């Protein structure tokens, strides 16, 4: 048997390496970001303390507002697009409504492995004048000069990005729902069938309610994930043209690393974190409530 002191030493030797790396790279810098967010700093020279000025400026910054609006659009496409569609696809596979379900699953899940920046470049090619979509439209309409102009449209510039997000992440929810559907005993559906329930009723009145907690938790995770969005949009449009496709994280990147506005950029970072923390707190509170019922 080993004595308590050497046991403690062993314990720390297991935990501390990971904790030191984690704290040095993730926790410690966060304190600096918070500090910087109350300053005005160009990356060199004196640091000027400005109090809440950066946060006040966010409230009236039209570019930040576009970014926030687009982040909310990502939330909407996640919660009302990816998740319901993922659930529907999963249910169809689970009930073996199609032959070759395995093959469909394998093909649909494929994009999960491709890096977002490359997905962005791929879809830029699909939408380009010599890409798939404009070519098909030209052949269908006979208009030989057709090119996509939606990216310059003030109200709809963000729509193609939402479509790509749907393409990229729906299958993730499909796989999560498939795993959860397999936990529902067949006898539940069998019994409903015996009672004469139709497929639509089974899906709406049995499957959806059973999976409700899973839907709910994934929604909140999708919401908190939505506020982080960067790679895809940065690579597809960089937030342009004229900030139409800006999201908070891209705006933060440009503010800090392109325009060297470290204080203001840090304030945007902190706001992003606050949105994420709020979403996760909501999950926690709601999960507790669900468990109590």
């Amino acid at each position, binding site marked *: *048997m*080993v004595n308590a002191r050497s*046991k403690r030493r062993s*314990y720390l030797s*297991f935990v501390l390496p*990971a*904790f030191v*790396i*984690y704290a*040095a*790279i*993730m*926790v410690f810098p966060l304190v*600096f*970001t918070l500090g910087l967010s109350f300053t005005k700093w160009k990356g060199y020279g004196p640091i000027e303390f400005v109090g809440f000025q950066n946060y006040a400026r966010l409230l009236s910054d039209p570019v930040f507002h576009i970014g926030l609006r687009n982040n909310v659009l990502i939330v909407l496409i996640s919660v009302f697009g990816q998740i319901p569609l993922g659930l*529907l696809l999963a249910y169809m596979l689970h009930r*073996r*409504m*199609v032959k070759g379900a*395995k093959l*469909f699953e394998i093909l649909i899940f*494929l994009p*999960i*492995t*491709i*890096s977002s*920046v*490359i997905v*962005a*470049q*791929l*879809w830029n*090619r*699909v939408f380009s004048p010599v*890409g*798939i979509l404009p*070519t098909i439209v030209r052949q269908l309409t006979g208009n030989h000069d057709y090119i996509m102009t939606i990216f310059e449209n003030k109200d709809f510039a963000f729509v193609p990005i939402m479509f790509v997000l749907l393409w990229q992440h729906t*299958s*993730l929810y499909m*796989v999560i729902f498939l*795993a959860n*559907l397999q936990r529902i005993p*067949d006898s539940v*559906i*069998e019994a409903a*069938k015996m009672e004469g329930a*139709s*497929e639509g009723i089974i899906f709406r009145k049995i499957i959806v309610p059973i999976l409700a907690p899973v839907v709910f938790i994934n929604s909140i*995770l999708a919401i908190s*994930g939505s506020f982080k969005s*960067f790679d895809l949009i940065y*690579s597809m449009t960089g937030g342009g043209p004229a900030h139409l496709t800006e999201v908070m994280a891209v705006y*933060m*990147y440009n503010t800090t690393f392109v325009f060297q506005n470290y204080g203001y*950029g840090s304030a945007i*970072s*902190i706001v*992003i*974190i606050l949105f994420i923390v709020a979403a*996760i707190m909501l999950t926690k509170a709601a999960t507790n409530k669900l468990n109590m019922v």
Partner: protein
Amino acid sequence: MQYRSRLAIAPLHWRISAYIIMVLFTLITVFPLVWLGYSSLKPNAEIVQHPLALPQAPSFDNYVRAWTMGGLGTALENSLIYTGIATVSTLFLALAAAFGLAKFPFKSAKFFTWAFSVGLMLTVHAVIVPLFLAEVRIGLINTRLGVILPYVAFDLPMSILIALSYVKGIPDALIESAEIDGAKYRQIFWSLIVPLSAPVAATMAILSFLRHWNEFLFVFIFTTKKALKSLPVAITQFAGRQNIEYGLQYASLVIGIMPMILFYMLFHRQLVKGFGEGALKE
């Protein structure tokens, strides 16, 4: 994944709708990739004149040029180094931490576990500015270590939480009997915990590999030398510069996608399991 449900067949109109939706969704998923693949074998003029047609005389010209012009060999090598070292380091650091937190009766374990779980909420953007400034000052900027360290740090919270729930399930009796036999904790870790954790370690490593391979921002900001760029960064920058050389763009993108398709074919089952059981999206 197994489709357990072998119930009475769904009614016809459900099955027809299912076929339509499945085929449509699969086409939208797969066709852009297939199109990119065969278009990359066409010369530029053919791409412009007949964007959807199959190549008349398939050629790997674009690949040869993209590979050398974009320095993609170096980038592939960098990606393998970053991802390989980061994945292995994360795995063992996380298993060790999980062993410490799960099997030692110290009060601070609660605090450490909480601290790691807070990490799930933090994003790269929250720390990238101070981290960049610190790396410049310490001289880690433009080094491989300067990229690998943040890779590991950002992957630790998730990996530790996955490992923790698994290591908790290893019976205490096994560890106690090893203690009685006089084994040191380091021996217990390497000869008991690591082998017993093999199944979860596989899932952790595969998810970790995927996240590291596809990471963008750290390499993008912390390295300025072309010789240090990873594959996704090198390809994004290369493809973005080729204004009208469509063939080169397509070929470089295929080079970026191919390793992941291979990875997907090898580990599809583990990926489905890992994501299906609640790993988060990122």
